[in-house]
């Protein structure tokens, strides 16, 4: 089971992307859990994931959160803005899987 966390300001626009990513994962028969959460929740929930992706609009959080994620051994990065805008579930899923693979 691969667990992917998406974070944006209110967890709203990422939730649209989550749906697209789930579809992409289902098409590939991948066993994934993908959730969208809001930035205020980050500190309480960041530990139990395989990878954390930030919406580009909250990329200013990256510097502060990277050390937290690193200490938990979780890769964290910002989603490509164009993939985000086009809600490209395939590409963002690829990105997530690549980040997980690079960590192992």
């Amino acid at each position, binding site marked *: 089971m691969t667990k992917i966390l998406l974070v*944006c*300001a*209110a967890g*709203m*626009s990422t939730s*649209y992307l989550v749906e697209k990513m789930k579809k992409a994962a289902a098409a590939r028969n991948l066993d994934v859990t993908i959730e969208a959460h809001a*930035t*205020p929740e980050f*500190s*309480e929930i960041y530990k139990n994931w395989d990878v954390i992706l930030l*919406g*580009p*609009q*909250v*990329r*200013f*959080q990256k*510097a*502060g959160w990277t050390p937290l994620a690193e200490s938990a051994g979780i890769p964290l990065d910002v989603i490509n*803005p*164009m993939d*985000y*805008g*086009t*809600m490209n579930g395939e590409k963002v899923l690829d990105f997530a899987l690549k980040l997980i693979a690079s960590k192992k």
Partner: protein
Amino acid sequence: MNFFDILETKLMPVMSKVGTQRHIMAIRDGVVATIPLTVIGGLSLIIANPPFSKTATGFGKLWLDFATANKVALSMPFNMTMALMSIFAVLAMGYSLANSYKMNPLNGSILSLMTYLLMSAQTVNVDKLGRLMPTKYLDGQGIFTAILAFIVAIEVTRFLKKKNITIKMPDGVPPAIANSFDALVPAFILVLIVYPITLVVQNVAGVPVPQMIMNLFKPLIAAVDSPFGIAFVALLAQLLWAVGIHGSSVVGAIANPFKESNLAANAAAQAAGEAMPYVFTPAFWSFFIVIGGSGATLGLLFLLFRSRSSHLKGIGRVALIPGLFNINEPIIFGMPMIFNPTLFIPFVFSQVICSVIAYYATVLGFVGRAFATVPWTTPAPLGALIGTADWRAAVLVLILAAISTVIYYPFFKVYERTLIKQEEADAAEASAVAAD
């Protein structure tokens, strides 16, 4: 270095500071946590105060009669939620700040509330009823006092902890019991510090502490609740969005206490049957300014949908549904609006212009003032209608959406033409390759 680079390199560090500053974030969390309660409170207020005049007939008359007969009961959910908003906010703010310091969040909540109540709600004796606590300063207008209270409470607690001023429990005492003593020393010290100061201030200033704080903030509140103030907030948020930073959440963290305080004053006035004092409320922001999302892009959806550029049409398809619910990241990042010199002017200024028009439409009495909160993801005309209980507000939303579309139109056409040219060139190249 171009303009966008300057915006990003100058704003990004500031935004990272603001967007990650723990006290500001705690304030934001506190306001966000109270949204369900302000929504319920607002609905209760609408039901108790129907938007019909005494001359109404049919359904309007039925509702009005029912509401008049049951006003106290119908207003009670409002009185127990929105009218006590700062109590809930101070709990959430104290929780969040304590959590960010890795201190016991429950103690943080309790100490913050205690400090706030000590400052704001000293009981009075009333025959037969016993001790009553005045709620006058516990609604959203008390938010600035609540902010002061939770910061004092948590910082004093943190200081004591750092200096190791605590009651030591012998080994073997369960953590839950030890934790309950954790709060004892700070509670004691906070009462010793806060209460005498409160008494002195009350006697010297002749008004309760929250009233004094409100008086201090009055000029600032008035400045924010002006066409310049509102336009400035709308502009700053949008400059950030132009480089792809969540402007409304960063600027909103600071602007929200003002909007909430205004909303509480309006709600209190509405409940008392008086004229509402303020224009700039959460509903005003969500439905008259960021219509369809940041940049007032509701009408733009229509242009995208009909576009001859396949890219823009594709974005229109992805953006349509979220766009109706005021989520427009597909437009912002897909079109894209960010780092886009062609679209910079309408993207930044259409919502600023909307904000000024909406301000004057409100103060001139063309539309009602908002006294209820509606989740910002409600489609804008509906949100405006519920927030103000005035159908003309929904019409204003449509007018503003039309105006912003007109502002976008010429810039959109220029951008569209570039894209179509690019797409035709790409297609020609592809077919040339295929022909080879």
